[in-house]
């Protein structure tokens, strides 16, 4: 009974803490756009979360920034540029292809090509092993060995 009471209290506490996002109700279309753009942007404070997912102080500020810029009529690309100018390509979950990101984009393909090359070399070598055929006398010797006769008795 005590436990149930405590649980109930905890639940009530949770309800008390939960607040409705105030801006979502105003303009669902805008909020959708904010969510869509910010889920492609990295939160600098908790780096493996997107801005959309993060509740860090800075992430909330940046979301508000995105929201107000959208209200002011800025395009998604303009807002993206605004973020990159301040935090670098690092904020983008989809970084552009350029010299500094070459390894990032091309690396996996380079590894794939290398893997295919190694596989090709390996297969070719193995085929050569299979292709060596036995001469008739070698065949006879092998046959004898397989039937358990010692070489000397031949």
């Amino acid at each position, binding site marked *: 009974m005590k436990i149930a009471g405590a649980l109930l209290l905890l639940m009530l506490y949770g309800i008390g803490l939960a607040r409705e996002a105030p801006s979502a109700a105003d303009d669902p279309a805008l909020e959708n756009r904010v969510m869509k753009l910010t889920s492609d942007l990295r939160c600098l404070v908790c780096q493996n979360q997107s801005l959309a997912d993060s509740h860090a102080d*800075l992430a909330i500020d940046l979301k508000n920034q995105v929201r107000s810029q959208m209200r002011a009529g800025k395009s998604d690309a303009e807002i993206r540029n605004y973020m990159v100018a*301040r*935090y*670098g390509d*690092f904020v983008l979950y989809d970084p552009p292809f350029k010299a500094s990101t070459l390894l990032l984009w091309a690396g996996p393909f380079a590894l794939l090509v290398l893997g295919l090359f190694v596989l090709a070399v390996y297969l070719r070598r193995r085929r050569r092993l299979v292709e060596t055929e036995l001469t008739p006398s070698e065949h006879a010797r092998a046959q004898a060995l397989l039937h358990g006769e010692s070489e000397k008795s031949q």
Partner: protein
Amino acid sequence: MKRFLPLLIFLVLVLFLAVGLSLNPREVPSPLIGKAAPAFRLPLLQDPGRSFGTEDLKGKVWILNVWASWCTACLEEHPILVEFSKANVLPIYGLNYKDKHEDALKWLSEHGNPYAMSIEDGDGRVGIDYGVYGVPETYLIDGNGVIRYKRVGPVTPEILQNKILPMAKQFRG
């Protein structure tokens, strides 16, 4: 040769891991290095009636230090800044980032004030312009208003002596 191939692969892996693990993922290269410091004009912390901005520092080499009373790492670097400011070689201007006015003032009176001036960035807008994401942050700005160096996290005496001071001399000359 064939015998050593696994060892070779292992060593390459070790090398990659060693480099990867010694990098600091929190250190994001700032795109602002070599660019003009974003202009601002903000109220003074100690005298909110007056304002202060980047315009007032034209022609000077200065340090911008982003700090807040809620920031524990700031406490770590604070004595270093206080010590550095006594030498009077390079002025430090403080950007009090998203702080409560009273808390900030109390913090300065408790721990000492290394700043030539502190300005108040209550809503963090200027912080966003500077790409602040982990307080404390420290910037070196030259006489043309260009950002020359940025440090995320507490500064150390070594950074001040070996990085910031030599650069400051270079840009002053």
